[in-house]
Every structure is written in structure tokens, then in C-alpha cells.
């Protein structure tokens, strides 16, 4: 594995290998000494063209726990804001010794471009590209589901038959895309619930069936996992939905809807949450919520991803 760009690039074996290794990383993260020497002497750059403090910190902690040197490069206040191209920025960072670039970019495909254009030879990890993908988020979500279901016996397990409902702004969501692809590889059945305005124009999106209302989805699908997506308020001004109140009424996970889920159902959210909009405090703070586990698991999964990409003989 040289790059991680899309969840679709990963075979089932590769996914399981990443998740199983992440199990061991989570053991390390529970130790007093939360450090491994694995990537000693290697340099990892967090190349963030978009603000995302939590994702950046998660990768930074993951890399440091593997003993890599971490450089944070934010587009703001850098030469990028003066019009430097993606190519020049990436080549400059590689010339400074970066072996892996963790890339967050507002343009879909930016990580793909860095991995495939021949501009640089570093490992590329897609930390979110526009409306395309965010594969480490999907991996940590899958890890979290597996852990909730199988506990300490998670190793080697897929998510066969698990029913996952993704709710909200699928159209603009890289989290939804990556999860759809990854969870399907793991054997889960994924369906969508969203206003039609926030589904891709071709409603048969990647073959997933969908509901236009959350109530129908809960009543007909009986999901084991409900994954709420963050709603960007600027979508409202662009008339994707009329008001926050109407969105919340139609697609928010209220206390009442939470109560209608099966009692073992898991409630997930990639964060940051808009409490009272797509998710109620009752749901966010319930025992069924995995929001904080997702954050903690993010570090373990990203350690595993860094290990899988940056160790192993280098082949060209």
C-alpha cells in the first residue's frame, strides 16, 4: 500500500489488516508509555488547505506515537495564500524531506492528483478532499462499529449483515462516500436518508437505496447503526432546505426518534456536531452514542494507516 486515497482502493484483506493492527494500537494508547519506535527518523507532513483542527491533531498524535517527526503546514499565512500551486507546495515539502503527506484539501481529487501526477513520490494520505472522500474517517467508523459489536473479539471480524443508515447531507459529504464504499466492502448494508436536494442527482448513488424521510428509514430499515452527518448551515442559504427547524423536524435524530431505534443501535457522528440541528443532546449524550469513542479510535486507526503505508519495503 503506497497511498490511501479512496476507501474503494482497499481490499477486504487490507481493511481487516488495518483494523486489526489498529486494535493493537489501541492497546498501546492505553499503556503508560504510548509510544512505538516504528517510524523513527521519518517525517510526516500535515498539509492542510482547509481548517480542521481535530483531524489534524488526530493525525499528529498518531504520527508522534509512532515516533515520526511531524510538520504542520497550514495553507493560511503560507505561500499557498500567495498563489503557490499545489504542485509547487508539495514538491517544496518533499524537498525538505517529507516521506508522507497527509492532505486535507477543499478540491475533490487533490490527494489523487498528488499521488498520481508524478509531481512527487511521497506517500499520500487523503485526510479529506472536497466532497470526495475521507477514508480514515470511514476506517475509524468501521473500527468503532466493530468494537461496539464484538468488543475484545473484534480481530478478523467483518461487518457482515450490519444495517447502517447514513443520514443527512450525502451530496456534499466525503464521510458518506468513504463510509458507503468501505462498509460495503466489509459486508454491511448501507442505506441513506436525506432530503432529495442533498442526495446526488442520480438517486441510485453507488447502488445504495435511500429514504427521503428519517422516520420511514427507521421504521422500515431498522438500522443497527445510525450515522448522522454534519449539516453545513450555508446549505440553507443555498435553498437545499428551507430552515434549520424544518431540517431538524424531518431529518434530525430527536429523543423521540432515538427511542424508536432498537436498544442496541449505535448512534454515530463524525463531529463537530450541531446539537439541536441534526442531532439532539439526548442522542449525542446517550449510551448509544459513540461520538467520543470515534475520536479516540481515530488515533489508533491513523497509527495503523501510517504503519501500513510507511513500513514495508519501498517498491516503485
Amino acid at each position, binding site marked *: 500500500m503506497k497511498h490511501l486515497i479512496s476507501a474503494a482502493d482497499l481490499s477486504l484483506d487490507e481493511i481487516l489488516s488495518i483494523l486489526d493492527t489498529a486494535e493493537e494500537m489501541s492497546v498501546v494508547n492505553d499503556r503508560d508509555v504510548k509510544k512505538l*519506535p516504528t517510524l523513527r527518523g521519518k517525517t510526516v507532513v500535515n498539509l492542510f488547505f482547509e481548517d480542521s483542527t481535530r483531524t489534524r491533531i488526530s493525525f499528529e498524535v498518531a504520527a508522534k506515537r509512532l515516533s515520526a517527526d511531524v510538520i504542520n503546514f497550514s495553507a493560511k499565512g503560507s505561500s499557498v495564500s500567495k498563489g503557490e500551486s499545489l504542485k509547487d507546495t508539495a514538491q517544496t515539502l518533499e524537498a525538505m524531506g517529507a516521506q508522507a503527506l497527509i492532505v486535507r484539501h477543499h478540491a475533490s481529487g487533490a490527494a489523487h492528483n498528488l499521488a498520481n501526477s508524478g509531481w512527487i513520490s511521497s506517500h499520500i494520505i487523503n485526510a479529506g478532499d472536497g466532497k470526495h472522500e475521507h477514508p480514515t474517517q470511514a476506517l475509524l467508523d468501521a473500527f468503532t462499529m466493530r468494537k461496539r459489536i464484538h468488543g475484545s473479539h473484534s480481530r478478523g471480524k467483518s461487518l457482515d449483515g450490519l444495517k447502517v443508515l447514513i443520514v443527512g447531507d450525502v451530496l456534499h459529504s466525503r464521510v458518506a462516500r468513504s463510509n458507503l464504499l468501505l462498509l460495503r466492502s466489509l459486508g454491511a448494508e448501507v442505506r441513506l436518508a436525506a432530503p432529495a436536494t442533498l442526495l446526488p442527482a442520480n438517486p441510485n448513488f453507488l447502488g445504495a437505496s435511500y429514504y427521503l424521510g428519517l422516520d420511514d428509514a427507521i421504521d422500515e430499515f431498522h438500522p443497527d447503526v445510525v450515522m448522522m452527518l454534519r449539516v453545513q448551515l450555508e446549505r440553507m442559504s443555498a435553498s437545499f432546505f428551507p430552515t434549520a427547524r424544518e431540517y431538524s423536524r424531518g431529518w434530525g435524530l430527536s429523543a423521540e426518534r432515538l427511542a424508536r431505534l432498537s436498544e442496541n443501535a449505535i448512534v454515530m457522528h463524525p463531529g463537530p456536531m450541531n446539537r439541536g440541528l441534526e442531532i439532539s443532546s439526548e442522542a449525542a449524550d446517550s449510551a448509544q452514542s459513540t461520538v467520543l469513542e470515534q475520536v479516540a479510535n481515530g488515533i489508533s486507526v491513523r497509527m495503523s494507516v501510517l504503519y501500513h503505508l510507511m513500513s514495508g519495503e519501498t517498491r516503485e
Partner: protein
Amino acid sequence: MSTRTVLSSEDIDRAITRIAHQIIEANHGTSNLVLLGIPTRGVVLANRIARAIANNYPDFDPSNSVGRLDITMYRDDLDRKPTRAVTETELPAKGITDQTLVLVDDVLFSGRTIRAALDALTEYGRPRAVKLAVLIDRGHRELPIRADFVGKNLPSSRDERINVQLTESDAENQVVIES
């Protein structure tokens, strides 16, 4: 390629029994003794040695004295081999601090695996002493490491392959040399 059996199933059993005795003798008994196998076949051997000890010393409880130590993340050759899967590390509930710890592996060759194991151990505690038991010592050390308990010394050339097969993970119980 020629294949030659150097240890039969019976030879392996005898070697394990001998190593078990030597460990008890060196440790003056079974107290504070922990065996840690290095995956994959070191774990199998550690369990066999523990059973051999328990046969003679019923007060020895393998379930609280045997574990496994994955050393993958501590290797110094990660860039030279395909990415390895990381496996579980399981320590006995009593931990390793102040224990006499015996690392168990199938073949001692360059010594680099043991070096990585010693590094990994420091993250888990401070044993009173660390010993090394191996089924085969084939020479060619690259580090100042030696085994305390050896099933068989097997001088070999570098391009030969020593293949330890144990029924827990393989079809046969034997050690073969391929050249």
C-alpha cells in the same frame, strides 16, 4: 532444492523437555517465572515448554505464566520486507515486573528479532532477569546476543533455510533444512 529433516517429532519433544528442565534448574524452581513466546512459532513453543514444566511441577500455572510478545513495531528491517501484520501482545495478568522472563523463539539467527523483543519489553515493565530459549540456534549472529537454552545447535550456511514445523500451525512436527 534439497530438503533434509534435522529434528523429528520425537527430537523436538526431547528438546522441549530438556529446555523445561534447564529453565527450572536455572530459576531454582518455578516461582516468578514467565514465558513469552514471539509469534508465530515462539508462542507455540512457549506453550509446549510451559506444559512440560507443569507436568513435573503441578504448582506451575501456565495460564498465568505464559504470554506472547509481538515485536513487529520494534523491528529494524521494516523498510526491507513487505508490511507485516501486527498481532496481539498478551501478557500474564501478573505482568512482567520483577519476574524472571524467558523469551521463546523457534530459530535464533541474526539476533535482530531478540533485540526488538528486548526493546518491546521495556514498554511493559522491568523484569528481574530476561533469558532466551530457542529450539534452533543456527549461528550467523549480527548482534551480541546469545541463547540461554538451546534445543539444538545447527551450523548452517546463510543461504539455507531452516523451516520449523509445529502441528499447532503446520501439518508436521519437524525441523527441516532447505538448501
